């Protein structure tokens, strides 16, 4: 035996401490280097760490999802409330966006027309009965009066038939009592466009000798003095010459979707323009 048995523990303790100090001092000197043993330990620990991480995360998830559900109801209520508010906001933003698009179209229309115009919002509609009218939120106090033409971005809507201080009633061109001087854009044949209720309009008093085809564009002729010339009205839907009378039966589909009308533009014509 190299050392007496009595001193063995002390010597071993000293050896252990010296070994530790050697490792420490070597490591401090070679801080940037990764030694072989360190690499070996890390390589061994990596898969173990993977397994343990997966197991812990599984347990953690199970705990959070299935066991630790305190406050979940409150959170759920809060989230539902938040969701409702966000949905409301989204609807409002979308509404604003769509309104912006519509107003942009109206603005484009305003720039196209050489007459002064007033934009108005549709506040009520009565299209279920035979009478096809809408109410707008502008009236005489805004410079509107009876017989002024009303447009939407797609085309002609109708004319004002009643005007109070802040509200006006528009007779839509599909109303059966509405008659507008119109012409076919392609061959300049003139006729009277009469409302036909839910069927749209029909172009009357066009001789059977004239050639009219489905798809032809119908515009205002400007002859009556109520509507300026060249306003888009609709397109020919069907032509029927089989009737026994002198004239053709021409159905016209208006460009304007009256059921979805929200903003309109009133053309403010002065008396001279009308004449």
């Amino acid at each position: 035996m190299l050392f007496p048995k009595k001193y063995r523990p002390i010597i071993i303790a000293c050896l252990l401490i010296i070994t530790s100090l050697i490792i420490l001092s070597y490591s401090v000197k070679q801080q940037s280097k990764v030694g072989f043993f360190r690499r070996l330990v890390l390589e061994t620990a990596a898969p173990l760490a993977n397994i343990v991480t997966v197991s812990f995360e599984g347990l953690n998830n199970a705990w959070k999802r299935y066991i630790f559900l305190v406050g979940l109801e409150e959170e759920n209520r809060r989230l539902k409330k938040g969701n409702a508010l966000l949905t409301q906001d989204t609807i409002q933003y979308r509404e604003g966006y769509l309104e912006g698009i519509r107003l942009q179209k109206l603005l484009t229309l305003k720039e196209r027309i050489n007459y002064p115009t007033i934009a108005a919002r549709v506040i009520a509609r009565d299209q279920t009965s035979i009478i096809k009218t809408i109410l707008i939120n502008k009236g005489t106090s805004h410079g509107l009066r009876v017989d002024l033409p009303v447009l939407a971005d797609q085309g002609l809507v109708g004319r004002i038939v009643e005007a109070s201080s802040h509200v006006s009633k528009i007779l839509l061109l599909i109303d059966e009592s509405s008659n507008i001087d119109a012409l076919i854009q392609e061959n300049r044949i003139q006729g009277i466009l009469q409302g036909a209720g839910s069927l749209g309009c029909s172009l009357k008093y066009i001789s059977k000798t004239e050639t009219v085809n489905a798809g032809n564009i119908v515009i205002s002729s400007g002859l009556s003095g109520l509507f300026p010339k060249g306003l888009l009205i609709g397109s020919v839907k069907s032509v029927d010459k089989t009737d026994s009378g002198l004239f053709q039966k021409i159905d016209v589909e208006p460009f304007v979707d009256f059921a979805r009308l929200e903003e309109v533009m009133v053309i403010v014509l002065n008396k001279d323009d009308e004449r």
Partner: protein
Amino acid sequence: MINYILVPFLSLILIVIQMMVSDIMLFGKIGVELSLILVIYVGFRLDIIRGGVLSLIIGFLRDCITFSISGLYTLLYVIIFLISMLASHRISPGKPAFIMIFTLICALFEGMIIALFYPLLYGGVISPHALLYYMPQALIVSGLSPILFRTFNRIEVLLNGRDERPIERT
């Protein structure tokens, strides 16, 4: 013979687990140093050669995995092992209260040494919040120590094929 490979491997698993516990369950805010409890247990149970080498290995593994300076934990664990061994010669280590107090002292000692060593090795000043940082860790480790002592005891019995017995020097 197989134990000489198995025990370091199990120690490695323990260190990995302690890291994951700290990382996943305590969000890396508090370290739960289970390996320190193992070193103290080894100090109470094993002789100087087996225990000393095992402490050296555990410390080295800890150093390697935590990316700290290799040797700091090795040195600390060897010192703690020697202190534990000396303490177990004078006081009966079977009582949970003693285990808890002793573990608390060792954990604080370890924290203090690390707090002193880091500025020495890297420069800078000793953090005034070091005690505040290590105190919760030490308390947690101290609280866990009696349970882990029992667990280590069972593992030891399983590995050696012996009956379970009180925590005393073999």
